């Protein structure tokens, strides 16, 4: 049996990579994908602990999370699409309407 540390390590790496992407990438679409990656890192944690403690609730929770994430992505992409329509770009560095 694969020890749980492996799962947690994978999850941590995934999360760190996602966070790095969110903070550094310029393209809004890529940032959205990175957010999905961070979400899935959390999902891996949930599934791993579910198996480790023999408790099925964790897995049910993951299904819930995936559902919500799908909806969230739909909203996020819609925003990005509209942003592209109005400003002609999805580059986050060009979008600073809330600047001082």
């Amino acid at each position: 049996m694969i020890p749980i540390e492996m799962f947690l390590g994978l999850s941590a790496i995934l999360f760190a990579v996602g966070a790095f992407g969110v903070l550094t990438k310029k393209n809004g679409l890529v940032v959205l994908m990175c957010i999905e990656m961070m979400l899935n890192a959390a999902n891996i944690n949930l599934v791993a602990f579910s198996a480790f403690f023999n408790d099925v609730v964790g897995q049910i929770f993951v299904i819930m999370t995936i559902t919500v994430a799908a909806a969230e992505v739909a909203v996020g992409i819609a925003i990005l699409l509209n942003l592209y329509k109005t400003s002609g770009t999805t580059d986050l560095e060009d979008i600073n309407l809330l600047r001082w």
Partner: protein
Amino acid sequence: MLFIDYAWLIPIIPLAAFLIIGFFGHKTPEGGGYIAIIAAAVSFVLSALVGYEILSGTVAAPYVNDIVWLEMSPGVVLNFGLYIDNLSVLMLIFSSLISTLIFIYSIGYMHDQGERKRRYYTEVSLFLTAMLGLVISSNFLEMFIFWEIVGLCSYLLIGFWGFKHPKGEKASIAAASAAKKAFLVTRMGDVSLLAGLFVLLNAFGSLDFVSLFDPANIAAVDNSTLALGSLLIFGGVIGKSAQFPLHDWLPDAMEGPTTVSALIHAATMVKAGVYLTARSLPLFVQSTDVTLFVAVIGGFTAFYAATMALNNMNIKRVLAYSTLSQLGYMVLALGAAGYMMAASLAAGDVEVDHAMGYTAGTFHMMNHAFFKALLFLGAGSVIHAVGTEDMRQMGGLRKRMSITSITMLIATLAIAGIPLFSGFWSKDLILESVLHVAEGGHGAASAVFLILFVLALVTAFMTAFYMFRLWYMTFGGEEGEASKHCHGESPRSMTYPLVILSGFAALSGFLILFGFADALTFNFVDGAFVVGGHGLSMIEVLEDIFLNPFAYVSIALAVLGFYIAYRMYEVRDIEPGRYNQYGESSLYKLLQKRYYFPEFYNALALKLAYPAAMAVEQVDRKAVDGTVDGIANSITGGSQMLRRIQTGFVQTYAAFVVGGVLLVIVLIYLIGYLTGGL
């Protein structure tokens, strides 16, 4: 049911009229004038009913009804309520009665003022409210509030023509500056009064008349503090009642409509000062010096103001000076009463009955209210008809305006002190009360009162002279320039009040024989100051007046004044110009220039007040504004820098979030490590 339970309505009714006229006056006939009349008349009826209950003894005077207004620690309570005794009743009745008559008169006098009538009736209603509230207030603070409203209304009404005077721009500038002068000069008195209230509040812990006039409380207060408080309060009287040296606003106040002058001089405003003196007498009598000061100010003002009336050509100005002079009489009488009582108290008397000057002063206040209202309304009627205030252009109006001339004659006889007319009784009582102190053997003070008595006698002579001079110049002799295009007698709404007032001016003096001398007295009985009772009976009053040789001297002087005026201005066989080098003598000019008092005020303002104001302004701009601006600037500057954090980049915010989470984690581990957990 007792009407006194509804006494609080007396000032409320004109207040309601004030609001109604203020908001809807332009939709009612005469700009709300009828509403003002009804309100004043209802107030008068209620005042009379309340007065009957107080004077008949149905309700024990003083009637006090307070609600707590402010509670300040420790144990200092400021109340709001009613304090009604014989003095308040007197003020209530004559103020509301005369105001009613003046409002009726205004319907005719202000008829052609158009849109501005609403403003007029709004302000006079508030004026009456303030005056009625002032005389039934139960404490000094409440009284001070109404006192200030009275001041505000006088400002507004004197400056009534400050925007658009029927006689052009120059007159409206004069009206505006007269209003400003009245406001500022009386303000000096008001500041003094306010300071007096602070002194009293500090000494007594209360401003209620009930506790302030309780001899037990007075005894607990340091005498010099009390004297200081009394003098400061009297400073307010000097401002409001236009006593020397704050008298100069009153002649200027003639720039307002004549009805306003009548209101100010007869029913409201200047009477408030005399009322305050009479009301505060229990405090004043704790020191002979304070009362002596009061008497000297009053006596001097009486004489001094009368001199300026001798050669003035403006009909309203003459009346203004005569008001000053008569107010001086009242203050003199109250001072004499106060001195008598103060001397008796200082000598340790446990019971002091009937300080006569009090009766005389309040009685003269009432009589003066009637005949001065009549004089001003008569003068207004004349001005209305001839269109000028200069008496040289009048004359011979006797035939054209018979009602006005006869009613004015009655008022003139009353103010001149011709026997049996109202002014005679009260003026003689005043003279006698002053003489009484002069003969009382009080050392140097008696000498001072003797001088005041002589001044008052001379004033009586001058009063008779200038009043008959006014009457003859206006109604007697040849027809003047303006008289020729006089359009006859004034409308009935103006002459009816004149007729009613002339009845009062002629007959109100007899009240002294029928109870007034017992109702308005000031006594120290059973260890308390009491207004009313212990007074003189009819026979005693008659004895006092007619067995006193000086009464005949004053009558003779009044007749002499009348005779000189008759020869100079009716028969004209004595040319008045002969005695003053035809207006060139320095005394004549001194009087014309009002003893250079306006110049003195101006110089004082320009040389002293203006630089002081500039210095204060500099302090305000540099120090106060500088501090405030500095704080504001440092805050805006700081936020200018702080706003740079808001880059608008979503990733920067995300970085802060991640950094913050990391920081929290590190801190948790650090704390765990340091406390030995984890």
